[in-house]
């Protein structure tokens, strides 16, 4: 019966080699969680930074969960995409972070990565764009034998999340 209210925004991203970024995001929760209101997933606009190298999205996130357990605390999945001058989109990074579990405002930095692929693919990516993408997005957060995957670091996505918790103390959870 406890409630979690996540209010915040995806501020933007830094450190990506590409400009013109946008971000697809989604929140996954365990089975014990119930979304009372809000949108679980979304996509930001494309931002091309004019000054500095941070792409600002300021995309609002407003979710209200009810939960009957602590398992499956909400987590955020992010996919950063970049749009090139032809309007084509390619993957710039996968990211994943847990929604903080203590109330208050939190500044989160979510580093991202992208699959590297074979040298052919790298070459193709450098010249004609595109790039390898995960077939199964689960690998972003599941602990599968990820060491087999060769990745390159992407930039960092910055989030600012405010947490409101309610009634957790009722069930012996101190926060």
């Amino acid at each position, binding site marked *: 019966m406890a409630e979690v209210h996540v209010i915040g925004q995806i501020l933007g991203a830094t450190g990506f080699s590409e400009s013109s970024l946008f971000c697809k995001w989604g929140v996954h929760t365990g089975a014990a969680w119930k979304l009372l209101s809000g949108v679980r997933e979304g996509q930001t606009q494309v931002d091309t930074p004019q000054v500095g190298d941070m792409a600002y999205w300021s995309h609002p996130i407003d979710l209200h969960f*009810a939960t009957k357990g602590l398992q499956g605390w909400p987590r955020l999945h992010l996919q950063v995409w970049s749009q090139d001058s032809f309007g084509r989109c390619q993957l710039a990074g996968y990211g994943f972070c847990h929604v903080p579990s203590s109330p208050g405002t939190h500044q989160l930095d979510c580093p991202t990565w992208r699959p590297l692929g074979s040298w052919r693919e790298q070459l193709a990516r450098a010249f004609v764009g595109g790039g390898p993408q995960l077939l199964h997005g689960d690998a972003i957060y599941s602990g599968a034998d990820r060491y087999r995957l060769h990745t390159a670091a992407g930039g960092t996505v910055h989030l600012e999340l405010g947490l409101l918790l309610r009634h957790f103390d009722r069930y012996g959870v101190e926060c």
Partner: protein
Amino acid sequence: MNPKEEKMKIITEEFIENDEDADVGRQKKTSKVQRQKRKKQLLTAGPQEMVSEKAHLGSRQEPGQQDLDTDTRLLSMPTRRGPRSLPPIPSASRTGFAEFSMRERMREKLQAARSKAESALLQEVPTPRPRRLRSPSEKEVETEFGTEPSREIQRTQQEDDSQSYSRVKFRDSVRKSKSKPPVPPGFPSAEEAYNFFTFNFDPEPEESEEKTKAKNRDGAHQEEEEGEEEEPRVQEGVNKTDEEELDGKDAMDFLLGLDRGAEDTVAVRPADYESVHVRLQMEKELLFIPSRRTVPMYKKLPENAQPRFLEDEGLYIGARPEVPCTNQNIMENRLLTQDPGRGWFGDDGRILALPNPIKPFPSRPPVLTQEQDIKTELETLYKKAVKYVYSSQHMIGYGDPPGSFQLDIDISGLIFTHHPCFSREHVLAAKLAQLYDQYLARRQRNKAKFLTDKLHALRNAVQMSLNPAKTPKSLNTTRKAINEYKSEIRQTRKLRDTEQEKDRTLLKTIIKVWKEMKSLREFQRFTNTPLKLVLRKEKVDQKADEEAYEAEIQAEISELLEEHREEYDQRMDGYRSAHQQWKAWKKAQRAKKKRKKQAVEEHSNEEMEEPYPGEDPVKPVPPEPTDRAVIERQVRERAAQSRRRPGEPMLVPELSLAGSVTPNDQCPRVEVSRREDVKRRSVYLKVLFNDKEVSRTDSRPLGADFRVHFGQIFNLQIFNWPESLTLQVYETVGHSGTTLLAEVFLPVPETTIVTGRAPLEEIEFSSNQHVTLDHEGVGSGVPFSFEADGSNQLILMTSGKVSNSVSWATGENGIPLIPPLSQQNIGFRSALKRADAISSIGTSGLTDMKKLAKWAAESKLDPNDPNNAPLMQLILVATSGESYVPDFFRLEQLQQEFNFVSDEELNRSRRFRLLCLRSQEVPEFRNYKQIPVYDREIMEKVFQDYEKRLQDRNVIETKDHIDTHRATVAKYLQQVRESVINRFLIAKHHFLLADLIVEEEVPNISILGLRLFKLAEQKRPLRPRRKGRKKVTAQNLSDGDIKLLVNIIRAYDIPVRKPTASKFQQPSRSSRNFSEKHAASPTTHSPTHSADYPLGQVLVRPFVEVSFQRTICHTTTAEGPNPSWNEELELPFRAPNGDYSTTSLQSVKDDVFINIFDEVLYDVLEDDRERGSGIHTRIERHWLGCVKIPFSTIYFQAKIDGTFKIDIPPVLLGYSKERSVIVERGFDSVRSLSEGSYITLFITMEPQLVPGESVREKFDSQEDEKLLQATEKFQAECALKFPNRQCLTTVIDLSGKTVFITRYLKPLNPPQELLSAYPNNPQATAELVARYVSLIPFLPDTVSFAGLCDLWSTSDQFLDLLAGDEEEHAVLLCNYFLSLGKKAWLVMGNAIPEGPTAYVLTREQSHYLIWNPCSGHFYGQFDTFCPLKSVGCLIGPDNIWFNIQRYDSPLRINFDVTKPKLWKSFFSRSLPYPGLSSVQPEELVYQRTDKTAAAELQDRIEKILKEKIMDWRPRHLTRWNRYCTSTLRHFLPLLERSQGEDVEDNHRAELLKQLGDYRFSGFPLHMPYSELKPLIEAVYSTGVHNIDVPNVEFALAVYIHPYPKNVLSVWIYVASLIRNR
């Protein structure tokens, strides 16, 4: 440690230091030879030392040097490292932990020894020590003492411990270094090594050493140790000094240059040698070498314990790490000698070991093989950079599907099991074939045989177990088993009997059908089917058969007898006990009676019957024993029925197609025509995927055997998970249209079924179409019979089987092209937990327990491995099939244990529920502003409405909708609406850039130029200028923000009062004919102003009242029939539920009522005497008429401006349409006068709202692509020329598909009833038809479909729904007119107040008429009061014409569509009309409306209205005048018949006659019936109930006239009566 000792040590240290220096300095060269020699010596001595250090230590003299040496090394080492003043650092860095602990122990012992030695020293102090101190060269010692006294103190204070430490440690390290003969590099330096090697070894002390050792062994250990510690030190000192002395002398000699002979200093001794044997001996004593032999079990286990093997006991034991056997043995042996040796062994006698922690495969990723064995979850796919295509879902978490998937649908053929063209013979043949199939299937299973065998086996088993000799088991179990067997025998026998009977009856039926067929063939003298049944007889051995039969019967009888006997015994037991009871009771009774008798004798007068306690037990009847004969008879009967008689040959039917079919020329004509018909027919199948047609088969002719072979494979490239796969069977007859026979639903294949492995399946279908044929074909859904007399009728439906197979295709590399699971709604997938099982057997195997179990067995899954526990349990449970099988697979196993609350509790929370509903935008809660924080603050009743609505979804509620039909319609409408809303939900969230970003256009040069030009313009402050109002989007609005502004300007031709007493009869208008209307002749009006109105007295004092959402505003009262108010009224607007969103506003159903009243003043003075002093009047208002404008119209039009016809009731008692001479001026005569009164209005909303836009969405269409392109082109062209004119080419039908508009127009028959009303008068018929159409209730699409789009329903849908907007009305009316033979078109244009709308245009002989389909009125083309204000396009059944004339007002345009200059047609020579088929039905079927239901409804409405009126008058008594009511009731049907015309005067006369002494005001209201609410609203808006004259009486009558198809015309007559005094 005492200071003396310490001092001494320091001194020696110093000495060594010096000596060393000296050595280094002087003796480097000379002593080389010596050194080497000594080294050799040392080498030989090394092992010895290693073996027994103790021995060395124990020796008195000889090891002294060594010890000295060690000591010197120890002491010199630290000094060399740091400056001298520093304390020696304990070389802890080099000592391990083990050493440290050892050291600790040593130190303790040392301490103890010291204390002892101290006490000993205290006694003998003076003797040795001073001597020792003096013995070195004194000078140096002196200097040392003198120079550094302070340091000494320091040391004594601080480092007594560390001193001893380092010593001990040193020894350790020495020991260590010795044990490892090659000295670790860097440990001892060259000098140290030299020192180490330069001591003398005496070979002699070996023996003494031995001796002492032995002595030590014998002696007390403790003391020996202590001594050991103490002694060397003492010796150290001594030896050191000796050597120092010696060295010092050497040095002196050297310095002095005295050349002494070598013999002085060097003694030649034999090399030290210890024999191998001795050494081994010594080693043996010291070392322990564990044996390699296996350790016997008893040693490893505790006493008297048997080894336990846990694995055998069923416990899980992981795989042990692999260790060679010898190593293991060595280890075991070693452990056994250790102290707590057995603790290392487990119960099974092996060393305790954890499961092997080593992974079988290396975890370092092989760099090059990365591509080969990458896991599926980590697969990546190179994607090209593509332009972003908008998709409604942005899935994150799952990658996009990698591409297309393929589904192969193989349609091999179609077989009809019934078809309308079946002849009777075919019917029988089909039946026969079916039965034969059944027979074959049964024979294959041969259940009867199986059961018989089982029976035999069981009997044998019983026999066996009855024989005690062969069954050694206990008697008890045997009996139990026998009982079980017996019951099973009983069961089996029963089953076998039924099976046999079934077999037999099946055979019989087959034969019967075949016989019927044969007789039919004979009867009709031709054969249609090649079917032939041959019965093969199989001879059986008569005798054996008979015997078997008899034996079987006997066995059965005996079993039955036994059963009966058992039963009898049981019953007998029961009887006995019952009898016993009964007897006892009897006895008691007797005793009681006896007592009673005595009592009776005593009190004879108190004779009474004592009631028996309870009821009498009946005397039990003993059961009858069963008779063998009876049973035998029964058994034999049954056998005869169900079994083959003995000796009877076995019949084996065989069906073949060997027969010949009679050729056509020998068949009768009907049969030939049937065959012809069959030949003309062809069948094809459409393949529908997710309800979309994807492909279709070729059209194949129907064979004579009603089989169609297709043999086509369709490869469907799909993107989504298939939800449904449907085949539609279409039949084409000749060249006419195709009909949909049936739909076949194919199951979506499992993910394991891939092409090549899928079996052909036969899926049955059937259709419910009714077909009657005029030839031999029996038809479908039509009764027919085989009998001549037509009895025994059969109704067969078209049915058949499609043989097909559906499977997933495999890609080039053998990977099935199956969409990933993520697309299925399986939910969260944990790739890891199930990876192994899934990858090997596929996901569907998880549900198939057998497969899973097989897999588990094959892979040798350890059932005891805790990792496999849930799986094994699942398999166990599933395969055993007995215990509880959970039908779920729990993903998060521990979830439940950690839950805060249960699911129910979570769902019970009202707050959460409210929040969820609000976020789901459920209409009731969409605009719930703030939700309380606590559950207790939320009332349960909040959900009541919602829950009720959910419940009612399927229940048809007749409370709100008085008749059931409308209730169902309302439900249907609701469902359609919901589906439409769902369909457009996505489209609603589809934004364009302009929706989100408001960007002002950058001014270009032309605009700037204009601006500049304006600056120079002359200023004209008085000239009014129009300013655009700011539009407000429907956000951030709340109650009270929006106002409805109604500007009432003026009215024309308001009815005027008529004195009640007037018997004046107006000239009858019945002569008015049709031509008059369009001719607009004003001749009918004779200025008949009566004498009752003196000149100057007002004829009428009208005022206007506007009511909206029960808010009422009214104007001031004006005077005269043509009043001018020019007043603005302001009404607040409230959106339903406070929801001001566009969709909500669009669906506001409220109407604005503009009522015109007459204000009448009555003198209420009771007393004439007061007339002089006061005026007492009462104001009464009489309703004259109303205009009703739906809010949605205002909302979409933004403003409504125009002159409207006032809806005046046909009879307005007390009023007449009087043309007063006063107002009759020149203008009026110019104005074309038509009937009715008019009012000029201007209505708008403040602030102006932006109406929602229609959905921008492309819809599916079944239209030709070319046609669709042409429509787009046409529309674009039209819009370019006349952007304001409506041009409609395609519309959306109820199922959401785009349909070309002309398909809606087609002649459709109006109800026969209407046609027969005026057989000779086509005009009257047309009017009647228009009236009929107008009686169908009006419901705008924006209301019914939440403003999403304009949906067009076909006429039959419209008539079924009984609701629709202008288009539906217009289409229906147009279709009726077309069927009446008129030339009719649909007019799309603008009208007031509706806005864009549809009218109907008809062409009479010489002129055009415009019909308003919603009101049923018609207007001439040149009628100024025609509400149609502009014409955009005309639509006929085969073409569309767009108006390209300069004007669009119907008054000014030419309707001749043949002129291409005036009308641009869609289909022209370049694009000829392709002959589009209509979407309308062939004909409309009308049901007569139930008159009694209508009457019932009429009564109910009347009752409800009366109640309502009484409710509205809470403070007054409402009296009903029954007499008047009945009069009115009689009058209403009359009104209906005459359509509300020309009856007023008769009626008035009649009323006067009957109710002469009442002042009467009232009027009939007429409207189509849709719901009750509008009726109530209408009555309310007339304000009849507002009269509060004390003695007022009311009359209310309702009449419903039923038209076909449940169209009801409702008349409500409301009147108020006031008795005249």
